[in-house]
């Protein structure tokens, strides 16, 4: 018998009902708060000032319309990549290759401009749709490969998509350093103006309030894609199949759902969304093909999808939060802070799922004789 008995004990009971929506959000929020707290401790240990860092992140990302617009620019690729992960994860397909699909999308879009298939002064109405198609196709192709390998040879998609990330980066580098290198620099030439997606600032003449705002047409793509993904997943027959496979592959098989075909199609859909993200970044922000076009958007998209609980509209909101983190994080020392905070958030988020599956009870222990 122990000499000292705590006056209460903690008991976890499996939850039989689904928890209410507010509770789900509350738990996620709690996870973020805990993560920021833990992140603060590490920043302090590394010799930084956590409170100043966090205030700085807030100010540098939401402090004015100008910086908020920049936050949205970072959120656009995250929305699209987050949706890409959402689609795949809903079928329990672990597409970790959104980063590579993003790079390939950027490559495809650039190829439209840089291979000279269009006259230099082609209209915006020709350039942008063609770049979109090429970006989407290249991303879908990069999703097709692991999808096919999984369906045909049962190759673990986590590893194949990851390996394809590295291959995609080397592929782009071949063109950046070699074929399309401009004057020996590690970047292509700047695209003609008509290959740039319009920004809010382009309309500053008519609406002076828009001056300097960098948010571009990609935001519209992102929002439309969110609606599309929501419709596909929750209102279409295909989405029903995807969800069925994700929840219970055996039941799906007995119901006559073609799992192999869906594996390939969903990976392609996922890759297409990530490819569109790459196109939108190239055409809306960078305006040429170069090396550092992504601070790990493809990986952050995984966290976005998870934090949004695979809800396409929540993906949009969560992307803005992470866009802020990426934007403001660039100036924070030590420079690894945004990545670390993302890691801590994902860890505490997964841990917090326990609170959704179990009811925690604190039971007063009665003094037993």
């Amino acid at each position, binding site marked *: 018998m122990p000499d000292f008995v705590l006056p209460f004990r903690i008991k976890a009971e499996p939850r039989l009902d689904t928890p209410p929506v507010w509770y789900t959000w509350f738990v996620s929020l709690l996870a973020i708060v805990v993560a920021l707290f833990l992140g603060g401790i590490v920043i302090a240990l590394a010799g930084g000032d956590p409170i100043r860092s966090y205030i700085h992140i807030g100010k540098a990302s939401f402090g004015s319309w100008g910086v908020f617009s920049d936050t949205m620019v970072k959120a656009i690729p995250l929305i699209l990549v987050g949706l890409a992960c959402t689609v795949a994860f809903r079928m329990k397909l672990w597409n970790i290759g959104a980063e590579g699909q993003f790079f390939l999308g950027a490559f495809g879009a650039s190829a439209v401009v840089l291979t000279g298939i269009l006259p230099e002064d082609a209209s915006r109405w020709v350039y942008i749709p063609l770049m979109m198609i090429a970006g989407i196709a290249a991303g879908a192709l990069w999703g097709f490969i692991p999808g096919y390998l999984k369906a045909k040879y049962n190759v673990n998609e986590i590893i194949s998509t990851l390996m394809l990330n590295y*291959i995609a980066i080397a592929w782009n*580098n071949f063109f950046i350093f070699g074929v399309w290198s401009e004057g020996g620099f590690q970047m292509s030439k700047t695209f003609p103006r008509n290959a740039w997606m319009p920004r809010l600032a382009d309309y500053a003449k008519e609406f002076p309030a828009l001056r300097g705002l960098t948010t571009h047409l990609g935001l519209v793509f992102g929002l439309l894609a969110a609606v599309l993904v929501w419709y596909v997943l929750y209102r279409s027959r295909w989405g029903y199949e995807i969800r069925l496979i994700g929840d219970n592959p055996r039941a799906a098989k007995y119901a006559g759902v073609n799992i192999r075909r869906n594996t390939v199609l969903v990976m392609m859909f996922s890759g297409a969304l990530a490819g569109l993200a790459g196109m939108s970044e190239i055409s809306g922000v960078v305006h040429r093909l170069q090396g550092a076009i992504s601070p790990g958007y493809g990986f952050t998209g995984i966290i976005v999808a*998870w934090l949004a609980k695979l809800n396409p509209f929540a993906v949009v909101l969560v992307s803005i939060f992470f866009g802020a983190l990426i934007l403001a994080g660039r100036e924070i020392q030590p420079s*690894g802070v945004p990545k670390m*905070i993302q*890691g801590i958030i994902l860890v505490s988020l*997964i841990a917090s799922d326990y609170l959704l599956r179990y009811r925690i009870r604190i039971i007063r222990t009665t003094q037993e004789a």
Partner: protein
Amino acid sequence: MDWIVILQAGVASGTVLLFATLGEIFAERSGVLNLGVEGMMLMGAMSAFSVAVKTGNPWLGVLVAMLAAGLLSQVHAFITVTLQADQVVSGLALTFLGTGLSLVLGEGLSKAGTVALLPAFSIPLLSRIPLLGPIFFTDQNVMVYLGYLLTPLAWYYINHTRPGMHLRAVGEHPAAADTLGISVYRLRYFYVFVGGTLAGLAGATISLAISPGWFSELTTAGQGWIAVGLVIFAQWDPVRGAIGSYVFGALRRLILDIQGPQTLLWFANPFYYNPYWGFFLQMLPYAFTVIVLVLGSREAVRKRLGAPAALGLPYIRGERGL
């Protein structure tokens, strides 16, 4: 190009993959898939280098690296074993966490300059064996020799000892192991820890022996993920894991060295005259990993081999499993 030199360096470079692969084999044999190898390796590489810079003692660096990565692995053990969360997502999270932590804690380390590295030496007698001597036993780092020892030990431990049998039982049929009085939870925590320490050792081997220094994420450059792939190719067997690791190590070296000479087999070396063709060479280890997985899965189907039956599944006492 001197083939002996390339193979010799390939064995050294493969040692990194070997440690990480062996560690992951231990964790997966106990039923826990840990995709956080890359993060744990970075953590190991960073802490080993950091401690070696501050204390001047590389051995202390190795020790701290193993502890740091082992500690990090316990986050994964807690989330997947105790909280029963999805092992895939938790492993990914661990990679993010390990990468982020090592970037923050390793800030400024890349400019640290030179440190005392782990020693390299030749083994008397063995180094005089023709062909094998120069490749395996001449001027190799102490870590390489450790790899030679660890591989048969791991194989013997898993297949021919009592604790090894418990390890396999926990990974194949945890409920049965539980009824025999084996603590499933404790063993899974323990072997995830073993996997973590070996990943840390792999990281330390990079930063203090094979390619010394701290180059943030480029220190590991995806080797942790290649190790995860090699485990599948190895069919969860340490000896096959070692062979795979050394072959991959040699491939990595070959890719580095093939761009050097002006002629290749009496022909003009295209990689020398078009340096940016080298990017295609850089793709090879990653493309090979995918190819190896295709071959491995076909073989698994033919021989009816498979992953540990309980791999990826949380064990919940009293619930009907498997």
